[in-house]
């Protein structure tokens, strides 16, 4: 009787542990590392402000993803994005990109989305100063413990 009881305890313990594991599916597991916030957003824009897309690369997910930049219509992956932006950035001698105080992030487990307006203050190689305010929507997913941008949409409002 005691043996049977012990065996039932073993069955229950294993089943419970299996159930607990299945409840903690990858999409819902506890996050390690701070979720993106305004400071993290600024880091991303600081990387872009170096005018070298390689510095922004660590923040973006590789593979097929949609990215909408100020121009052109769209990019279908980070590789395309980095290549396209490289040609644009080559026209600038410096840029400062500041995340404004309206930045907001919305965490949902392993997904975070955020919005902000961005102040651009740049100087073209021609010497012309360019100032604008962009709108930025960004979506991060936590992959292998790291927050990566899987989509972002940067635009300038039409005048």
């Amino acid at each position, binding site marked *: 009787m005691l*043996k*049977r009881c012990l*065996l*039932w305890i*073993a*069955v229950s313990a*294993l*089943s419970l*542990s*299996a*159930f607990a*594991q*299945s409840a*903690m*599916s*990858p*999409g*819902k597991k506890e996050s390690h590392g701070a979720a993106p916030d305004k400071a993290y957003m600024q880091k991303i824009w600081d990387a872009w402000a170096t005018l070298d897309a390689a510095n922004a690369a660590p923040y973006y997910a590789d593979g097929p993803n*949609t990215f*909408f*930049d*100020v*121009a*052109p*219509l*769209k990019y279908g992956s980070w590789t395309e994005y980095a290549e396209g932006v490289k040609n644009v950035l080559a026209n600038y001698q410096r840029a400062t990109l500041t995340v404004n105080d*309206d930045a*907001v992030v*919305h965490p*949902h*487990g*392993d*997904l975070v*989305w955020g*919005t902000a*307006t961005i102040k651009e203050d740049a100087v073209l190689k021609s010497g012309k100063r360019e100032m604008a*305010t962009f*709108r930025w*929507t960004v*979506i991060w997913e936590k992959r292998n413990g790291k927050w990566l941008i*899987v*989509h972002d*949409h940067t*635009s*300038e*409002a*039409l*005048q």
Partner: protein
Amino acid sequence: MRKRFVSLLSCVFLLGSLGLAQSNKPAPKKMAPSDSALDRAMLQTVLDGWSTLDPADAAKFYAHGPGTFFDVSPLKYSSWEEYEAGVRKVLVDYQSIKFTLNDDAAVHFHGDVAWATSTIKEDAVRKDGKREMATLRWTAIWEKRDGKWLIVHDHTSEPLQ
């Protein structure tokens, strides 16, 4: 006794392996049956709501109250109410607008949150007779509230030429 022990042991392994198989399931990003209402057709329905030139027809797809909405212009709206009032002023200059979702539309689910992207074909006629054609980009964030998918943020823009 030995038979009983073997069958109980089998149960242990069976239950354990079932649980393990469950834990190896991918993240819940696939379209669950309850997500079926939010698809490409639904995205087009939202655009059809805007195409009537009366924002009230799009209102039911949006979460009301404070929220950030980036439209083609101006810089931003901070609530659905602002958005609706602002767009209403723009739309009075049009006699017709048709928005068509392009084939690149995609919806990504993450539990009760979903995000969608698409390019959109705009074909409009202003009241002065001028035809306006453009391709817009659209990002929409949805939340399921009380069983209904609502847009809590969207960003519509036209790329700079």
